[in-house]
Structures are given as structure tokens and as C-alpha cells.
């Protein structure tokens, strides 16, 4: 409350107040007060609100108006949320909010969000300065990994022979057992390969979080907080790993993104 506050952007706050029954302030994240918004960026919701900054002291909330009587969660809403945050993360520090944070009004954003937490947010912004999140995703090639597993497990081999040419119904138990072995083997390989890759990338990230796999054939799912000026070296290191794993694991690197995995709300 005590800090000087102003609302930047084209939309008139008075108008918003008149519509306060139906409009809320969707919060994307926190940035520095002097952050530059990408031009022409629309927010989420329908109609898409104009993205603006609500500044207070040295920080600002990245917001747009949303209608409170319209549910959110269409694919376009997800894209809008992430695109905006990632665009800002490429230029400066951002503290991303989880999808779906809405406050009652611009006043509430100032008084309930920015005011009480100004120093915490500023401290966190300083910490992520110069960094962005990168996500490494690797997927096993099914044929290659199965061949590996069969070669390593005599039991799997035997089970495979047992079900060969036989109808599924007649070999259900053997199939389940074989699938179980394969699944467990993939889990073990995933752990090994994830650690192998993380070791190889040592020095190229400040922090890492092993994400839960998002697919049963995931080889690696790793979120890295890295310096943006190290991005090229990170890409190069992954390229080398991609060659080493050619035909076995398909690697993808996503980023730079806002540090979603590194500003986790405490339970």
C-alpha cells in the first residue's frame, strides 16, 4: 500500500473497476518493474485480455483481465500462458506462476500479492537473473531398447520364446511377466541414463530437477536451470550425447523457458 504504484498499459483501470463483477486479474508471473513486454502480446481467455504490468517498487506482476464467468483451460490458454512467460524469460528474470492464478482485481494484485511479498519476490528475481530453464527429454527407441533388454535377461528371452506364435489368451501370464520385466528394465535404464547425462552436463547447469517420466518409454526427463549465456555449450553437449545415443534415444532440448521447476511452492 505504502509504495508508489501505477498501472501501465492501455486499458483504463476505471473501466475495469466498473466491470469488477465479471473481470479478474490473471497473474502470469512476477518480473522486474522495468521489464519490457513483447509488443502485441495478448493474454489468455476469450476475449484475450491485454497483457500489462502492475508495478510496485522494483517488481511488477504480469497480468491480463479475464472474465470470471468463463472457465479457463483451453489449449490456447495454456499456450498463451507459457509463451508469454517464456518470451520474458529469454530477456530477463521471471518467476512463473502455476497456470490458473486469478486475483479479484488490479488492487488485489497490488495489495495482496505485490505489497506483502515485494522483498521475497525481488530476492528470487535476483537469484534467477541470467538463468533460464531448459528441459531435456529423451525417448527410447522401442526396438533398440527391447533388443537390449532381451539380450540382457535370459528370463525375458525364455518368456518371449514361450509366447511366440501362440494366441494372446493362452499366454496371458507369460505376457504379463515379460511386460513386467521390460518395464522394470526400462525404469532401471532410465535412472542410469538420466544420471549419465546429468553427469556429462555437469558445469552446464546451476540446478537440476529430475522430472517424473511423462511416457513409459522415457529415457530422460530433466529440468535444468542454466545460464542463458551457456546455452550454446549446453546444446553442443546434448548434440554429442545425441550422437552417442543415435538410434537408441531421441533427445530433445526445450528452452529457454521460465524457471517453472525452480520456483516451487512449498506445501
Amino acid at each position: 500500500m505504502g509504495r508508489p504504484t501505477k498501472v501501465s498499459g492501455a486499458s483504463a483501470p476505471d473501466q475495469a473497476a466498473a466491470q469488477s463483477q465479471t473481470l479478474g486479474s490473471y497473474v502470469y508471473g512476477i518480473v522486474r518493474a522495468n521489464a519490457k513486454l513483447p509488443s502485441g502480446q495478448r493474454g489468455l481467455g476469450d476475449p484475450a485480455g491485454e497483457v500489462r504490468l502492475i508495478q510496485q517498487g522494483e517488481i511488477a506482476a504480469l497480468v491480463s483481465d479475464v472474465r470470471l464467468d468463463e472457465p479457463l483451460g483451453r489449449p490456447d490458454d495454456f499456450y498463451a500462458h507459457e509463451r508469454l512467460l517464456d518470451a520474458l524469460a529469454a530477456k530477463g528474470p521471471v518467476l512463473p506462476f502455476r497456470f490458473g492464478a486469478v486475483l479479484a482485481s488490479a488492487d488485489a494484485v497490488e495489495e495482496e500479492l505485490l505489497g506483502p511479498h515485494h522483498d521475497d519476490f525481488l530476492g528470487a528475481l535476483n537469484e534467477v537473473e541470467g538463468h533460464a530453464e531448459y528441459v531435456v527429454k529423451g525417448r527410447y527407441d522401442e526396438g533398440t531398447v527391447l533388443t537390449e533388454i532381451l539380450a540382457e535377461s535370459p528370463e525375458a528371452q525364455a518368456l518371449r520364446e514361450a509366447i511366440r506364435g501362440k494366441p494372446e489368451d493362452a499366454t496371458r501370464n507369460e505376457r504379463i511377466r515379460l511386460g513386467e520385466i521390460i518395464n522394470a528394465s526400462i525404469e532401471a535404464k532410465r535412472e542410469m541414463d538420466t544420471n549419465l547425462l546429468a553427469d556429462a552436463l555437469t558445469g552446464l547447469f546451476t540446478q537440476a530437477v529430475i522430472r517424473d517420466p511423462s511416457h513409459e518409454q522415457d529415457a530422460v526427463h530433466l529440468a535444468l536451470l542454466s545460464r542463458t549465456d551457456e546455452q550454446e555449450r549446453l546444446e553442443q553437449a546434448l548434440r554429442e550425447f545425441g550422437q552417442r545415443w543415435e538410434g537408441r534415444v531421441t533427445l530433445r532440448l526445450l528452452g529457454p523457458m521460465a524457471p517453472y521447476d525452480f520456483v516451487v511452492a512449498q506445501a
Partner: protein
Amino acid sequence: MSTSVQPASAGAGGGGGPSGLADVIDTILDKGLVIDAYVRVSLVGIEILTIDARVVVASVDTYLRFAEAANRLDMTKSEKGLPDVIADAKGVPSQDKAKDMIQGVVEEAGDSLGELTGKQRDPAAEAAESETEVEVDRAHQGPPKRKFRPKREEG
């Protein structure tokens, strides 16, 4: 095989990226700062989406699928013609199937989303809550060092 750097939301507009939406959902639905007690805007279908986007719990179906893939995998190269062998060895057909499956899940969820959006017109202005709690977890306290956090147990 190939490594490419792309924004996580690549392929969004063009509708090209096969797992674009899945990647985004993966990232923004359960990560990032949370504020307690904000205005409740109904988030339609998100629960469903979240669950579906994380279909990784091994089930009997998974096992049976793996077993069938192993069954089809021709290591002796004796029973099939060459093209089949090559296709199998590269895991091409099954991989595509897996991809389709995942996409199917997401698209399906998207569909039910649409349905729900139509129906659940929750007059969601369920009272502006007053208190707002924000917790910032300084993910990188202390000196920069390699640190793995344990997987979060949830959902």
C-alpha cells in the same frame, strides 16, 4: 538421434508439433508459484488433463503392450521379409502407435474439455478471497552446485 532446441510451445500455432500441448501441460499445470486463495475461476477439465497427461503408471495393459512389442521384434530375421525386419528393428510401427496413443489421450482430454466448457458455466466469481499466501521456494539456496531433488510425490 537428433537434438533440436525449440521453445516448449513450438508448433502451437501451426498445429505441427506432435507433443507440443503435452509438453506445455506438463510444465505449467503443476509447476510454478502458487498463490493460495485467489478468485476461483473454474478451470475446466484440467484435472482430467493432468491425469491423462501423466499416463505413466505401469498397468497390465502396458505390460501386455510391451510383451507384444517384444513378440513382434524379430531378432532371428528368419520369419519375415526384409522390409518387416527393418521396420521392426527400428521400432517404427510400434513407436508410431505409442505416439498416437499419447496424442490420442491429449486430444481426447481436449475434447472433453470442450464439452465441459460448454456445460460447466460455473458462475465462478465465487467470492474474491481476501488473504493471499505466496510461498517462494528458493530453489537454489546456497552456493550453486549440482543438486537433485527427489521426485515429488503427488498425484
